[in-house]
């Protein structure tokens, strides 16, 4: 993991408690949902429900679970796994908090690295 692959996306407070905001990537790819629990834990998932691609960032966050607004699938914030008995997984993005700022792990795409 190269240091510059960790992107600072701003202070913890920029995400509402028991809530989420969407993070878009300049180059390409699916948006990311960054979640903050009531206990100030933060997680990042691909912002697509494994069921019908609903925007998880608009769901209700309870504990470490978000409920998709479209069809009420529960998704575990730490793993991206659908809560049983549903089956499926939203991609999970590594994340850490440094000095109150959230950093997500987004390696530069290979093409960019060559350019």
């Amino acid at each position, binding site marked *: 993991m190269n240091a510059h692959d960790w992107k600072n996306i701003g202070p913890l407070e920029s995400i509402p408690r028991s809530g989420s*905001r969407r993070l878009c990537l300049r180059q390409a790819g699916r948006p990311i949902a960054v979640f903050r629990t009531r206990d100030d834990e933060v997680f990042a998932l691909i912002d697509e429900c494994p069921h019908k691609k609903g925007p998880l960032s608009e769901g209700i966050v309870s504990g470490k679970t978000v409920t998709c607004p479209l069809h*009420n699938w529960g998704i575990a914030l730490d793993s991206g796994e659908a809560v049983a008995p549903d089956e499926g997984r939203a991609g999970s993005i590594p994340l850490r908090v440094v000095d109150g700022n959230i950093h997500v792990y987004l390696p530069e*795409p290979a093409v960019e690295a060559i350019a």
Partner: protein
Amino acid sequence: MYINDDLARLPPVAQLVVIGNGMAAMRTVEELLKHEGGKRYRITVFGAEPHVNYNRIMLSSVLAGDKQLDEIVINPRQWYEENGIRLITGDEVTAIDRDARTVTSASGICVPYDRLLIATGSKPLAPRIPGLELPGVCAFRDIADVDKMLAAARTHKHAVVIGGGLLGLEAAWGLRQRGMSVALVHLMPTLMERQLDAAAGQLLQRELDRRGIAFFTEGQTKEIGGVDHAERVLLEDGREIPADLVVLAIGIRPRIELAVAAGLEINRGIVVGDDMRTSDPDIFAVGECVEHRGQVFGLVAPIWDQAKVCGARLAGDQAAIFASKALSTSLKITGVDVFSAGALMAADASDEEITLRDESNGVYKKIVLRDGRLVGVVLYGHVVDGQWYLKLMRDKEDVSALRERLVFGKAFAEAESGGAQAVDYEAMPDDTQICGCNGVCKGDIVKAIRTLKLTTLSEVRAHTKASASCGQCTGQVEQILAYAAGVDARATKKTVCDCTEADHDEVRAAIRTQQLKSMDAVRTALGWKKPEGCHKCRPALNYYLLCAWPGEYRDDASSRFVNERLHANIQKDGTYSVVPRMWGGLTTPAELHAIADVAEKFHIPTVKVTGGQRIDLLGVKKEDLPAVWSDLGQAGLVSGHAYAKGLRTVKTCVGKEWCRFGTQDSTGLGVKLEKMCWGSWTPHKVKFAVSGCPRNCAEASIKDLGVICIDAGYDILVGGNGGVDLRATDLLVRVSSEDEVLQYAGAFMQLYREEAHYMERSAPWVARVGIDYVKRRLVEDAEGREQLCQRFLYSQTFARIDPWHERASGAAAAAFQPLPEVAGALA
């Protein structure tokens, strides 16, 4: 194939003459033609009416405008031609000569027969009263009668129907549908007393009374008055009813004159045996003119059976036997469901009656049991199980095992009785869709229950999604669970969610009595299993607290579904829709300019007029929402709360200001109601409407609260909704002033807010608690009503705030903006 001794007596080509061209006659001919033996007849049919064969039963539907005459024709002329049948219409048979074996018609046509079929039907009974001969008096028997009634309805106003049986009621309803003011005179205290018991008869009368038919029960007609046209009906007790049209529907009597003259055995009707033969073996009779084992017939089902037997007999089948079976009746009035069969009440102390009465839903069911067998059923309001009951009666099935559940209907009785219930869901194809929202079929549910060993409704929901959305199919899913796992899901308590053992009422009571003022306090006090709750209980608790502690409890946005959090409706592509409020459906050129400008400026792809008299802007990007609202706000437009469990629209008609029928200022009243109630949070969405006259153009009778203006004031209706589970409102009260309407509306809103379960529309709530309860709280308890309204108005002081204005001014800005973009890409 047939035992043809009978036919052996016939010449190779035999003459069959049919007297009568009605339903019984032609069904018999149809049956006959199905048989090989039918081919040797040359058939001649005489009909007194100038028409081809039509479905007399459907005359009611023609009268009511539900059907056209040509839609009730059973066999067109072409059918007669194709089958080589000679049809003579408009020519009544006047004589049968049994010695010469001929029949002769009024016009003098004489036709010989080898076999004769008499199907002369019945004629209307007429009371022995003066005035029957006046123009404007008719029966309700044939097309000519219907023509008279329709002509009267076009030019005259007042109709009186004499007779409150099946036919009379259908005539009354048809004339009412045609715009006449209709009075119905009935000799007995309750309607349809031969088919319905008193309770069901009263429900029926109440419903038809509500639909504008005036009833004069226990009314003995004395005279039809008028000079050269019917003008009034006079009753023995002195009552007098204006009448331009008088319809006699007191009953029918077999039409037997021909048979009498021919010397056939006659009693009340033409006596026939089980083989449908009269006392002359060459003469058969079917239909309403016959008497079989002492019984005469007025309903179609046994007549079809007679036709079948008679057709077979004519074709030489000597084994065909007619046996009268238990009969059922139903009424053909749109939206009035009545079914009855067999005994109407217990005959003696050893018979048992079981009754289910649900006044607020207009449902009444009664079953009569004798020696463990069903012998009678009367259904009002919910009749889908009628044929099932009828079959149980006919099969003389022992229903002792179902006794306690029988009155609740087929699904319930069978779902709980193991064996019998298995038949239904067993027989249901696996691909029958149960849950329309999530596309889940019966097979999916059964498979999940069996392979995963599911035993509760919530497990089935979790695994299959069946009944997880709108919940309409919950009952069916419960029954499938009962069928597949033998579990009675209904016995389990309906908790708020899996986080708690408490139900909605217990949670609300705890909030009030223990003064719980935060979600954490509620969860602690009631021992929630998850400290933060879940997506089901959090919105409910948030609402209950908001309702209980106005001005104190602060709304928790994170416990709201996205639409309520963002004050816009999320669409399937992740964009949002925006619906500004149009008070009472009124708008101005300036508002329309603002809406048009916004749509262009933000490239809003779809602009649609909603069913609630507003304009929907669809396809707005989330980050544009505050700017869109700001522009709309400049023109004075505020949120229409089209996304909220709160007051949505107040639909109105133009009322007396413009409409020639308008009785009150319905638009103005609608605006006042909307100004009073907007912004409130409620258990589920709430829609109002105000109609300026009983024509009800604003569709007030399917709203949570509807007002129908009348000359004398305002009818306030509650508890209706459209949608999947359509429910018409119940009348709450009639008041005389706008102020009273506003007070009742406020009080109703507050009662609903305080007592309904979260996510429960007012329609199921009123159905659950009963309109009588709502009346007790709002109509009979004036002080309570006043207090409810005061509480509502107090809570509204915190609620009538435009959320769009707040957000356009910068509130919760982060909620609408994504985080700043970062470099990177994801596969």
